[in-house]
């Protein structure tokens, strides 16, 4: 499918103006790529922070409640 299309395409004059055109398009894609990479780094930081929060929640769930009415009764009752 691509072969007839490519046959129609004129040879790119890469030795002259083509290098400037290629540079201009590369600049656009490089900018987008750098931006997406920065955002990906930030998102990984958010993911790490979410992991820490999950850990915090799990730790607090494992801890017995300190201020519940049962807690005091349990403490005063001998085992």
């Amino acid at each position, binding site marked *: 499918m691509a072969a007839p299309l490519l046959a*129609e*395409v*004129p040879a790119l*004059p890469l030795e002259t103006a083509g290098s400037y055109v290629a540079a*201009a398009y590369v600049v656009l894609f490089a900018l987008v790529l750098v931006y997406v990479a920065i955002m990906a780094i930030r998102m990984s930081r*958010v993911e790490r922070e979410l992991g820490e929060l999950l850990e915090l929640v799990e730790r607090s769930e494992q801890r017995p409640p300190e201020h519940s009415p049962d807690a005091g009764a349990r403490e005063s009752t001998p085992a």
Partner: protein
Amino acid sequence: MPPPSRQPAGALEAKRRRLRDRWGLRTLLIATVLGMTASLVLVFFYAPLEAEQGFLQKIFYVHVPLAIVSLCGFVLGGLLAIQHLRTRDPRWDMRSYVAIHMSLIFALGTLITGSIWAKGSWGHWWVWSEPTLVSFLIVFLLYATYQPLRFSIEDPERQARYASVFAITAGAFVPLNFIAVRLSTAYLHPRVLGSTSNLPAPMALTFLVSLVATALLYATLCNYELTAKRTRAKVRALRRRLDADSGETKQRRPRSAAPGMATAISAPTGSRGN
């Protein structure tokens, strides 16, 4: 007959917002990929070679849309800042900030691609006597001070207010600058707006598709950044709540040029959500 499910209005609204965010970004992303692909195919396989500049003129399809979208983005940032000053809703400040931030990136792309085109066409990377180039550089430098301005103000509320005033003033300067350059006598730089009717139909079509694709790219990246900022704000809000529950000391918000995200996610009563 089963009773209708009763969900609180807040939960329904949050669910609707999540769906809108997810589908909005996804739809924009698909449209951008399709638009950019169509634009590249048209530029390299459909648009004819220009008689004077030949293949070099293909830079026109990336440089000019970038310039138009970045200038429109600066104006959009001003309009969003007006909305922020009117409603005092920090989310408008966040949108204004993202619009200007993205426009600055696009403007940097415009300057670099313009320099490459100038080198290929005129033999110089930069021509100081060309009003279009210099005026665009002035606009770029003006907006380059936006982030340092924000960073210099610690109080988030005051930072947002001052940044909005800056965005409105600078946003008004952009069209004035554009008109001033148009009225200037030197017409070395090729005119695009208002003269698209002079372009042959295949070139005009390619240009319009490239413009739409660049605008879609801008909208997608803005939406992406807003979503990322909202997510970070929610994570920080959650951390504060958990820290408060566990009795740990409250962490102070680090000084930042970005809008106060903790305030940006809590909407005032009666304001529309996004």
